[in-house]
C-alpha cells in the first residue's frame, strides 16, 4: 500500500455529479500527473458531503481544506498552489452566508457545527467503491461481533435497548419489529431494505446508499442473523442508477471477501442479498405493495394483518426496514445501545437525516440529533431564508406530512412532538417555505403528487384525492366557493380514516394542516379572488402605474400576446382579458412601473 501524503476527496453524490464533479476528478488526475504528483496525492470519489447547494465540493486532506463550487478550470490552480506549493486557494474557499466570512476548514463550517453525523460519518469521507476503506473504519466489525459473540436474542435485546425507531416515517421501534419476525415460526425468512424513496425533494436514503453502501449491507446482515433470515432484498428505485451501481459493487466486493454468502466468517450464518429495481411508483414504498412488486406482481398494497413479520414475501416471515434504519444498526451494535440511546430525547433516540430544501441558503443533507429545534435547523444549519425574506412554514415529512409554522420554530424534532403538531417525522424531507410561497398552491402541489401516485385499489384514496385536488385547483384558479373549505376538511378526514394504506392515510395531511394554519390564505383565494403570496398565476394581475410609466414601449414590445397598448411617451395599459400573466412586461420595465398582485 503506497503512502499518499495528501488525499483529495471529490464529492460524487448525485448533486455534485450533476454539477460536473466527474470532470473535476478527471482534471485532477491529469494535472497531478503533469506535476508528477500522482504518486503522492490520492484522488478519490466519495459520497455526498451534504452541502449540495455549494457543489461540486472538494476536500483536501491532511489539512481538511474545504473548497466549494469547484469547476474543472479551477483544478490546475488547486494542484499548483495547494498541493504543490502549499498555499490554500482562497477564492475557492466556502463563504459562510451568515457572516460572509471565508471558512478554511471543514470543521469550522457552521453548517456542520450543529450536525451530528453518525449515519453519515462515512458519507463524503470514504470511497464507497472500496470495501477496504469501509473496513479501515471498523466496517463489518459489528457483524463479526454479533455472529461470533452474541446470540440472535441478545442482538434483538440490544436493538430494543437502543430505542432505535424506524426511520422510514412510521417510527415503529426497530427491536420490537425484529422480535416479531424472529418469533414467527418457519425456516425460511427474508429481510428487505426499503430504498424506494419517493417523496419530492427527499434524498437521504439515496445519499446513504451512494456514500456508504456497506453500512446498509452490514445492517441487513445483522438483522438477518438476529431474525434467522438467510436471504435479503434491497428494493431500490431504478431512478437511482448511481446508488444501484454502488450497491452492486458493494455486494460484489463483500461476496469476494466471503462476507456475503455461505458460512460468513467461519460461522453457520449464511446470507444472500439481491437488488430489486423498482419502477419508481410511490406506493411501492408501502411494505405490502413493495413485496408484491418483488414477487413480480402489480405494486399494490393489501390489508394488514397479516403483517409481513408473519406472512410477508412469498408468504414467509419478512422484516422490512428502510435504508437509514439499517445503516444505524452497525454503529449501535459496535458502540453499544447505551451510546446510541444517549443521543436524542426520551422517546426518540439517536439522530435523523433530513434533506433540507426550499428557500434556505444551505440546502443539502443534514444529520441532527433528535430533539433539535426547527429553528436551529432552518437558521443555524440552513443559514436562514434566501434573500432574508420572512419565514412562513416548513413542510416536514413530504407529501404525507404537514406544515409547521412560525409558532412551531422552537418545537423539538421528535416523533411525538411532530405528530402532536399535525405533521410527521416522515422519512426526512424538510421543505422550507417563505412569504412568496402560497400555501394553497403548496398543498395542491403535494396532493397532485399523491393523487397521481395513488394506485387506485381503494376508493377513498382513488376518488377522494381526486375530488380534493379538483377543489384545490378550482380555488387556485379563482373559482372557489365558500363551502369548499368544509368539503376539503370532511373529505380529508374521511380519506385518512378509511384508506387501505398509508399513502391515502396521509395524503390529506398537507391540505389539513394548511387549512388549520393558513385558513386566511384559502379565504383570500375564495372570497377576494386574490393570492396573498402572489404565486397563483390565474389570480395574478399585472398593472402599470400611469404615474411611473414613461411610455418607452418596452413592455408592449416584449409582450408575447400583444395585450399592452399605448402611445410612445404616454402611459401604457394592460388588457387583463388577454394577459397570460407571463411577467415579461414586469421583467423588462426599466422604471419599475409594473406591479403584480
Amino acid at each position, binding site marked *: 500500500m503506497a503512502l499518499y*501524503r495528501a488525499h483529495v*476527496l471529490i464529492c460524487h453524490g448525485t448533486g455534485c455529479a450533476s454539477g460536473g464533479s466527474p470532470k473535476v476528478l478527471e482534471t485532477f488526475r491529469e494535472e497531478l500527473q503533469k506535476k508528477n504528483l500522482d504518486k503522492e496525492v490520492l484522488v478519490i470519489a466519495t459520497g455526498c458531503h451534504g452541502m449540495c447547494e455549494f457543489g461540486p465540493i472538494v476536500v483536501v486532506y*491532511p489539512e481538511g481544506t474545504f473548497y466549494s463550487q469547484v469547476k474543472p478550470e479551477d483544478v490546475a490552480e488547486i494542484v499548483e498552489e495547494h498541493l504543490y*506549493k502549499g*498555499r490554500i486557494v482562497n477564492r475557492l474557499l466556502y463563504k459562510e452566508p451568515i457572516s460572509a466570512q471565508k471558512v478554511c476548514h471543514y470543521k469550522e463550517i457552521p453548517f456542520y457545527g450543529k450536525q451530528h453525523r453518525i449515519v453519515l460519518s462515512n458519507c463524503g*469521507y470514504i470511497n464507497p467503491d472500496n470495501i477496504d476503506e469501509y*473496513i479501515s473504519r471498523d466496517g463489518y466489525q459489528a457483524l463479526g461481533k454479533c455472529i461470533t459473540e452474541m446470540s440472535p436474542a441478545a442482538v434483538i435485546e440490544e436493538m430494543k435497548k437502543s430505542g432505535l425507531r424506524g426511520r422510514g416515517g412510521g417510527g415503529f421501534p426497530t427491536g420490537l419489529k425484529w422480535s416479531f419476525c424472529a418469533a414467527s415460526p418457519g425456516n425460511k425468512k427474508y429481510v428487505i431494505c426499503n430504498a424506494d424513496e419517493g417523496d419530492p425533494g427527499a434524498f437521504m436514503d439515496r445519499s446513504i446508499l451512494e456514500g456508504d453502501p456497506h453500512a446498509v449491507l452490514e445492517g441487513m446482515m445483522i438483522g438477518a442473523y438476529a431474525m434467522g433470515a438467510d436471504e435479503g432484498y434491497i428494493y431500490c428505485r431504478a431512478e437511482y442508477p448511481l446508488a444501484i451501481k454502488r450497491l452492486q459493487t458493494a455486494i460484489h466486493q463483500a461476496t469476494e471477501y466471503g462476507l456475503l454468502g455461505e458460512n460468513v*466468517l*467461519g460461522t453457520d450464518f449464511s446470507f444472500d442479498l439481491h437488488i430489486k429495481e423498482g419502477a419508481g411508483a410511490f406506493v411501492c414504498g408501502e411494505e405490502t405493495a413493495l413485496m408484491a412488486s418483488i414477487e413480480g406482481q402489480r405494486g399494490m398494497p393489501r390489508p394488514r394483518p397479516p403483517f409481513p413479520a408473519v406472512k410477508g414475501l412469498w408468504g414467509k416471515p419478512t422484516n422490512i426496514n428502510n435504508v437509514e434504519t439499517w445503516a444505524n444498526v452497525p454503529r449501535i451494535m459496535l458502540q453499544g445501545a447505551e451510546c446510541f440511546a444517549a443521543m436524542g430525547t426520551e422517546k426518540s433516540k439517536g439522530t435523523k437525516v433530513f434533506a433540507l430544501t426550499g428557500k434556505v441558503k444551505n440546502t443539502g443533507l443534514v444529520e441532527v440529533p433528535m430533539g433539535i429545534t426547527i429553528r436551529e435547523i432552518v437558521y443555524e444549519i440552513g443559514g436562514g431564508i434566501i434573500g432574508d425574506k420572512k419565514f412562513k412554514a416548513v413542510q416536514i415529512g413530504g407529501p404525507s406530512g404537514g406544515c409547521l409554522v412560525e409558532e412551531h420554530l422552537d418545537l423539538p424534532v421528535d416523533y411525538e412532538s411532530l405528530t402532536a403538531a399535525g405533521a410527521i417525522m416522515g422519512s426526512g424531507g424538510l421543505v422550507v417555505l417563505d412569504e412568496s410561497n402560497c400555501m394553497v398552491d403548496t398543498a395542491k402541489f403535494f396532493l397532485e403528487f399523491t393523487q397521481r401516485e395513488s394506485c387506485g385499489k381503494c376508493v377513498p384514496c382513488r376518488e377522494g384525492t381526486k375530488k380534493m385536488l379538483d377543489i384545490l385547483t378550482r380555488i387556485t384558479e379563482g373559482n372557489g366557493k365558500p363551502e369548499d373549505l368544509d368539503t376539503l376538511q370532511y373529505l380529508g378526514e374521511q380519506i385518512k380514516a378509511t384508506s387501505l394504506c398509508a399513502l391515502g392515510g396521509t395524503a390529506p395531511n398537507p391540505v389539513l394542516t394548511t387549512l388549520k394554519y393558513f385558513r386566511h390564505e384559502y379565504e383570500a383565494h375564495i372570497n377576494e379572488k386574490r393570492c396573498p403570496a402572489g404565486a397563483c398565476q390565474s389570480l395574478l394581475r399585472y398593472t402599470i402605474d400611469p404615474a411611473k410609466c414613461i411610455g418607452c414601449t418596452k413592455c408592449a414590445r416584449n409582450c408575447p400576446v400583444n395585450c399592452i397598448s399605448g402611445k410612445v411617451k404616454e402611459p401604457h395599459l394592460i388588457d387583463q382579458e388577454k394577459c397570460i400573466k407571463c411577467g415579461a412586461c414586469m421583467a423588462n420595465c426599466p422604471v419599475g412601473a409594473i406591479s403584480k398582485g
Partner: protein
Amino acid sequence: MTEKKIRSLDDLRKLKEKTGDLTSARSEDDKVKIILGMGTCGIAAGAREIMNAVLKELETRKLHNVAVETTGCIGMCQNEPLLDVIRPGEPRITYCLVTPADVTRIISEHVVNGRIVQDKLFGRAD
C-alpha cells in the same frame, strides 16, 4: 491480496489493521506533522527532492500516521529547504538547509523518538 476470503473475525481484524492506513491521512487524530516549505525559493533549493525523500522514508518505516503538509515561503529563502516537525503537544521545530540525507536522521531521531537533531536546528516556535 491473492486469497481474498476472510474466514474469521480474526482475519477481519487483521485486514482492518492493514487497511487502516488507507484513510489515516484523512483522520483528525493527533498526528506528527511534517511541513515542507514549497515556495518558489524552496522548490528552487530542492524541496521536491526533500519531499520525495520524506515520503520514501515514511513508506520504508511504515509510518503511516504522519501528516505531510506543504506551506509557502516564510521569508527565510537562503535557508531553504526548510522542514518543520510538530509532534503533538510539542513546539514546532524548524530545520534548515535540509538535504535528502538529513531526512532519514530527522525522521528516525525526531519524528520517531522525539530527539531534536541539533546540528540542523534552525528555530522553534512555541
